[in-house]
């Protein structure tokens, strides 16, 4: 008997509502004080193609998914055996082979499936008459003839059946279902509760359900946790940071964040604009940033490819933003729109022509996303440059428990501003002269005149905004003088390049160390893993497993990618006995970045690029292999 530790999986055609079902299941577990890590895999398709949702539940903190599941709910036969019978190149082979020994399979009894022929005599099969149950639930309220219209309730049936199997109190589920259907939809909610209850009872009557080896029991004192998706946390961070203007163009997997914000724009006086393309998104954001508003945008690789000229524009004009959350997905080109990849690190570092300053950060989990996105708005205004926050499909769509969401660095810092009465702001920073004695207005260094690009000692010029008397300025994408007028002069060009590029050193100094990198685990490890972004939780979970086996492994998590903490990373890695990088891309983009900045060559690169994130088990196996000195090979998801 295994209590409060299982993976539940539901699969079915896209559009069949498996998300709702998985999310109710996750919520029911979370409210009972259990920890949840849930992730979805789906096709770039609206209706019909196979998608599945895994919900891993545990008493302990879990930050990744496992290769296998304990309970499978199949709404169609493809979920059981795959799509090989109707496609020349199968995309998958079903999930039966992924079910742990002794696990349970709940399937629609209308599916032509013979458990005896499945080759899995160890599993417990529970055929459930999904439509019959829906019909029965409708009959209870006198709507029996409308059953087909309510086919989507199949997934509620699957949910009710599963919870009976793991002996979970039905009332807790009913409460969650009701909370998902509020207001006008409460009647539908009640129908779903009825359907779930009938399914629950149906499975309870099934003899072998009594001693099912996996159980879920609510904690005696349920913790007040939240259960959040990555894009929701990103959106909330933007709201908290005072972002007032978000632009976007619809693109998977970035759209959800913008739609979430738009849904709440009235409550927070934030304006969300859907643009004609990503070139428009970024440039609208830059225009709004120069007006003095905190601005953001969100996109994925193909959209980012269009945005790049706007990044250079924001940087040369020293715009106080935008903050851009880049949700990476499988590339190149259109690639795999709904699948995972960490393929855009080098692209985000070098998005446009010329040398220019911008900040690139890659938070590793939802808490770090919350902090980094919040901080990004401060950095954008203080250092007057665009910020890219690297996220990805996995971090966007993961649905997981968080104990408490808080900011370690919660101060709003709007940077140096000219407000019309602060002439001294320039004086305090020293005269506006560069080495060549030119202050840009031709009137001498002591003339008190506002200059948007004043050559100050630290390179930061207090920013004005249109409408402020005396704060007049010009902005140009050309090289310019302190007035913001075009120049091609040698000395001014040098002064401006040094002014802009010099700001990166200030950023490096100012960003707290824990937002730059972290070394997890013992200092004297036999193996050092170098990784970044959303693989953080998976690597930590895997190291916990390996630690229990007596292996000494530590993990250098790189978070700030530009400016890169070269010195600290170099110091840590020079002490390492054996370094392996782990990345969800083909080439090992962070490994190359480390070499570029430290001269340390990382030869052992464990890469995965099949469009799926690393599982805990994959990382355990890959690291155990590296630990033993085995040959390093790409990691591929087991599909059969």
């Amino acid at each position: 008997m295994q209590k409060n530790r299982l993976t539940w999986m539901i699969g079915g055609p896209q559009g069949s509502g498996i998300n709702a079902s998985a999310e109710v299941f996750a919520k029911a577990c979370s409210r009972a004080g259990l920890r949840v890590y849930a992730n979805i895999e789906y096709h770039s398709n609206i209706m019909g193609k196979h998608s599945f949702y895994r919900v891993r539940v545990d008493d302990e903190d879990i930050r990744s998914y496992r290769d296998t599941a304990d309970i499978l709910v199949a709404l169609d036969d493809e979920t059981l055996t795959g799509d090989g019978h109707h496609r020349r190149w199968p995309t998958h082979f079903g999930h039966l082979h992924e079910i742990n020994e002794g696990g349970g399979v709940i399937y629609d009894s209308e599916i032509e499936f013979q458990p005896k022929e499945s080759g899995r005599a160890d599993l417990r099969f529970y055929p459930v008459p999904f439509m019959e149950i829906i019909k029965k639930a409708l009959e209870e309220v006198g709507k029996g003839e409308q059953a087909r219209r309510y086919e989507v309730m199949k997934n509620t049936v699957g949910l009710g059946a599963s919870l009976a199997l793991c002996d979970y109190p039905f009332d807790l589920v009913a409460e969650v279902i009701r909370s998902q259907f509020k207001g006008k939809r409460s009647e539908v909610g009640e129908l779903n509760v009825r359907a779930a209850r009938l399914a629950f009872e149906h499975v309870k009557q099934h003899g072998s359900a009594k001693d099912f080896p996996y159980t879920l029991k609510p904690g005696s004192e349920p913790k007040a946790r939240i259960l959040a998706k990555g894009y929701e946390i990103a959106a909330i961070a933007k709201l908290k940071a005072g972002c007032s203007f978000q632009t976007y163009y619809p693109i998977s997997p970035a759209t959800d964040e913008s739609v979430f914000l738009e849904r709440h724009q009235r409550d927070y006086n934030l304006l969300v604009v859907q643009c004609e393309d990503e070139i428009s998104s970024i440039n609208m954001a830059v225009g709004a940033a120069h007006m003095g508003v905190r601005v953001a945008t969100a996109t994925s690789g193909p959209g980012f490819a269009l945005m790049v000229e706007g990044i250079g524009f924001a940087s040369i004009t020293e715009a106080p933003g935008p903050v851009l959350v880049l949700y990476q997905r499988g590339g190149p080109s259109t690639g795999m729109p709904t699948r995972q990849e960490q393929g855009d690190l080098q692209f985000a570092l070098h998005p446009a022509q010329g040398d220019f300053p911008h900040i690139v950060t890659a938070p590793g989990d939802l808490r770090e996303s919350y902090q980094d996105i919040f901080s990004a708005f401060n950095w954008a205004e203080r250092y007057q440059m665009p910020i890219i926050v690297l996220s990805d499909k996995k971090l966007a769509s993961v649905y997981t428990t968080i104990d408490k969401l808080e900011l370690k660095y919660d101060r709003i810092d709007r940077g140096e501003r000219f407000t019309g009465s602060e002439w001294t702001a320039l004086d305090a920073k020293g005269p506006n002269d560069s080495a060549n004695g030119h202050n840009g207005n031709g009137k001498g260094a002591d003339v008190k005149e506002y200059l948007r690009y004043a050559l100050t000692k630290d390179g930061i010029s207090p920013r004005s905004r249109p409408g402020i008397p005396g704060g007049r300025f010009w902005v140009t994408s050309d090289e310019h003088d302190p007035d913001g007028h075009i120049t091609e002069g040698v000395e001014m060009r040098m002064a401006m390049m040094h002014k802009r590029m010099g700001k990166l050193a200030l950023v490096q100094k100012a960003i707290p160390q824990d937002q730059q990198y972290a070394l997890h685990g013992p200092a004297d490890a036999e193996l050092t893993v170098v990784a970044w972004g959303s693989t953080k939780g998976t690597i930590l979970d895997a190291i916990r497993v390996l630690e229990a086996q007596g292996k000494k492994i530590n993990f250098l998590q790189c978070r700030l990618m530009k400016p890169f903490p070269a010195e600290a990373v170099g110091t840590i890695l020079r002490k390492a006995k054996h370094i392996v990088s782990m990345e969800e891309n083909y080439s090992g983009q962070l490994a190359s970045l480390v070499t570029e900045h430290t001269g340390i060559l990382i030869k052992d690169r464990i890469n995965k690029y099949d469009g799926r994130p690393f599982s805990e088990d994959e990382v355990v196996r890959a690291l155990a292999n590296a630990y033993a000195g085995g040959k390093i090979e790409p990691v591929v998801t087991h599909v059969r």
Partner: protein
Amino acid sequence: MSVNAPVKLTIKDYKSELHNDWCAGCGDFGILTSIQMALAQLQLDPDKVAVFSGIGCSGKTPHYINAYGFHTLHGRVLTVATGARLANTKQTVLALGGDGDGYGIGAGYFVGAGRRNVDFAYLVHNNNVYGLTKGQASPTLAKGKKTKSMPEQSIQDGINPVAMAIASGYTFIARAYALEPKYTAGIIARAIEHRGAALVDVLQTCPTYNDLYTKEWYEGADLPEKRSRLYKLEDQGFDGKVKDPTDKQEIIAKKSAAVARSYEDEPIPIGVYYEIDLPTYEDEVFRRIPDLKETPLVEQNAFERDVNPLLEAMR
């Protein structure tokens, strides 16, 4: 005269001190002067005006105007201007750029801006060539035409900006001529005053690269009767203004009439082709987020937001 009487702003107040590097005789001078005249005519406070431009000779215009100036990217001027305008709806926004900028590389944004109907005036310096790159064919040069620096005749046809603006949803559409600054200034002033997206396509000479459509050509110096190749729509009693914006039939009639006139090329009509009073994008925003009507985004206090209700909903 009271000491507190507001000082009347003159054209000088809208001139910056920067040295101008356009070619002698460039049509851009006429457009620049027209803008400054229009601003003076409307007595707009230079601090409350922001001028946005694209890239090319015309892109330098904001640097010569004493107002907030944004010299943006090639083809993207309307996107930057839109973002700025939505961030601060108290700022008057004037956008401008070349014909290549607006109708070629920026065509998608030209259409997008028309659909949104954000309140700004957009002036297109239409001289049929890419001047700053030394005279290639622009999107308004007709098929078969060849200016002096083109190796071959234009292989593709020109587009019709007025018809494109009608189709895209601009609510004020006019055409002017750069070498008639007084007339052009009047049109620009109307475009600025208009609530919504206003296009002024300004026919312009490029003395250096466009040897086809020169000052003399517009004046009709080569014609036996020596008459101008331009005429003013109002002189023929044309009225493009929609009287009743709820009258679908009137809208269709006025749009059709404007499009028909826009295909006339001998002589070319200048003046206001179409005008309608419709809710702007800003109006729609205010309907959705009422607080923004009195207090633009830039003046909102966005730093004391309570996000707890959102987090509570995730329990």
